[in-house]
């Protein structure tokens, strides 16, 4: 019967729990700037706090009150961002200031996209459920399960994503992020998330809202809150120039791999003499001892605590390539580069045909040696 006395206590606990997890503090508005027409406009979370606090009764249903209220709050929060005229943006946009609405801003000559508080709330709930164990509730990558993981889980405040197959100087669009989340990253606990697309899209919206404000003066972009960033889609990989001659591609790829000195970070798959030959130089090469090992890079823009975490470029005959199941995927990664790591964007820096050839070569390396320990050991002995 003592248990009976505990029922009020249970009720109190219930109430506390319900209050503690009510999750509707989220906010509205997200704005965005883009140079392209609306059909491929992507969301930019507006500079500001993580999630703006919205009163429960801030007039979501009241058309007349809504836009001025939103404007008032935003302009109070970002005094330098809006002028009096901007109120019109919000007023004109109604009722399109619903989820996903895109409105043109004459003043700043950019498009704005609006995300409702409901959408962000749903995204946050699913994020908490699926992602927070590694990426943490705050999105900084210090989740309980992310402890000691190398590479560490993304810190979403930086707005950097490594294997999106997008030009790494730009931000990936939603489709690229969706493909990444659905495909997972091989060799990491980032699984192939088997969740409905709609929910993943909401999670992605929320994750983008976690990126910190960018520096307006800096070149390039640092996150979705930077109004001057640019968004790009997955690099097109439909015109493989080597479909008729993969053998030739591999052969040329080996030369190009060493010509472009990929071995500065990745291993060289040739001894010093052969590397010289492949590079077309003579006797000039004095290569370090770890020539045929991957070299640590600490100059990434990805930081953990007070030092840059060491990013290890993969040895294609040993490590898993995160998203390298096909030649086309490898091409996309080479062409786009790896954001936040030492791998630059190669598209434009070298002809596409050559990048494809390198991709063929890398794919062949992995295909031939990865998992075939004896064969790999023999090969490595021959070049070390």
């Amino acid at each position, binding site marked *: 019967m003592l248990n009976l006395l505990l029922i009020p206590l249970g009720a109190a606990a219930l109430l506390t729990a319900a209050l503690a997890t009510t999750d509707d503090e989220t906010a509205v508005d997200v704005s965005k700037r883009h140079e392209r027409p609306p059909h491929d406009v992507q969301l930019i979370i507006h500079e500001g706090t993580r999630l703006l606090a919205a009163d429960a009764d801030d007039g979501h249903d009241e058309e007349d009150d809504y836009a001025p209220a939103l404007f008032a709050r935003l302009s109070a929060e970002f005094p330098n961002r809006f002028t009096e005229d901007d109120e019109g943006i919000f007023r004109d946009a109604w009722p399109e200031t619903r989820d996903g609405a895109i409105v043109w801003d004459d003043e700043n000559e950019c498009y704005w996209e609006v995300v409702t508080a409901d959408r962000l709330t749903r995204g946050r709930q699913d994020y908490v*459920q*699926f992602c927070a*164990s*590694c990426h943490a509730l705050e999105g900084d990558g210090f989740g*309980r*399960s992310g*402890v*000691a*993981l*190398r590479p*560490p889980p993304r810190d979403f405040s930086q707005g950097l994503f490594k294997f999106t197959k997008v030009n790494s100087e730009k931000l990936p669009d939603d489709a690229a992020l969706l493909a990444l989340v659905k495909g997972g990253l091989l*060799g*990491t*606990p980032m*699984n*192939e*998330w*088997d969740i409905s697309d709609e929910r993943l899209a909401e999670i992605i919206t929320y994750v983008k809202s976690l990126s910190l404000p960018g520096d307006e003066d800096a070149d390039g972009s640092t996150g979705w809150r930077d109004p001057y960033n640019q968004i790009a889609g997955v690099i097109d990989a439909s015109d493989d120039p080597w479909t008729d001659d993969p053998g030739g591609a591999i052969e040329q790829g080996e030369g190009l791999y060493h010509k472009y000195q990929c071995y500065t970070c990745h291993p060289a798959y040739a001894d010093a003499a052969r590397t010289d030959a492949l590079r077309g130089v003579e006797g000039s090469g004095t290569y370090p001892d*770890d020539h045929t*090992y*991957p*070299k*640590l890079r*600490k100059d990434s823009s990805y930081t*953990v*605590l007070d*030092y840059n*975490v*060491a990013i*290890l470029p993969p*040895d294609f005959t*040993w490590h898993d390539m995160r998203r390298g199941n096909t030649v086309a995927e490898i091409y996309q990664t080479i062409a786009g580069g790896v954001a936040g790591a030492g791998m630059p964007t190669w598209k434009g820096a070298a002809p596409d045909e050559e990048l494809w050839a390198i991709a063929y070569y890398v794919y062949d390396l992995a295909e031939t040696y990865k998992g075939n*320990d*004896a064969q*790999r*050991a023999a090969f*490595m002995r021959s070049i070390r």
Partner: protein
Amino acid sequence: MTLSHSHSVRSFLGPVRAVIATVIAAASLAPGALAQDATRWGPKESASSFGWRFDDLFMLIVILTGVSFLIMMVMLLVPVFRDKARAGHKASFDHGRSLHDKRFTAIVSVIVFIVLDAWVLVVAMRDLDEGFWNVPGPGEAPNAVRVQVLAQQWAWNFRQPGVDNKFGTPDDILTLNELVVPASAEAEGNEDWFAGRPVVLNLSSKDVIHSLFLPEMRVKRDANPGAINRMWFTPIRPGDYAILCAELCGFAHYQMHGKLRVLSPADFDAWEAEASAMALAAYDENDAGAQWAWDWQE
């Protein structure tokens, strides 16, 4: 499989097991055949030195319980068909409390206890003491391959000491969802439980409870946060085997699978040397956060 130490059980089991397996297979073939992608029935062949203990004991219990069940069903069906209510038929007035009935009850109970329980208990205790729970103590298996397993949502982190055989050093081999160990063909049927290179694991977890399930090795052990569990097995055949998580660990529980790569001893040594060298090359002394090895628990 040839095993010296279990002739009695195994020789008895041989023919009976074949019969039982045939019967069960026949019973299940009908539905199995209906499904075109029926690829497997029963666990994959055991690939560890004591995996046969599970297979044999399982079959022994199948036989014992199967016979018991048959007896029960006969006793159930005979009255159902023979003693149906009908005109002129009257049930016997029997309370079953005569001395004869009491004796009969007692005798059957004793038989059930001996045949069903004691027999299985003795075999199981032997199997536990010689196999499953016989984790090598300090110094008992100097050749052991030692692995620290750190489970997390939703992946397995494996740490091997590398060529220096010490944990927490720069050449520690770290793998994710893939455990590489050597095969010890000589361990099969060997009187020496720890012949060859037994694989001894220390399991723990970062977050929630996981359970390392190696179906072909016939072993399973929980990885509890805040504690270190031990487990062992000796693989006897090279090949790729399954690693599964058997304890609900969150919504991606089903995705928490990996690969157990068993290599021949020579291949393993080569792999270990190379992996150690790679680990050395990748070692970052500033990155204290990545050094999660713990003192080995024996």
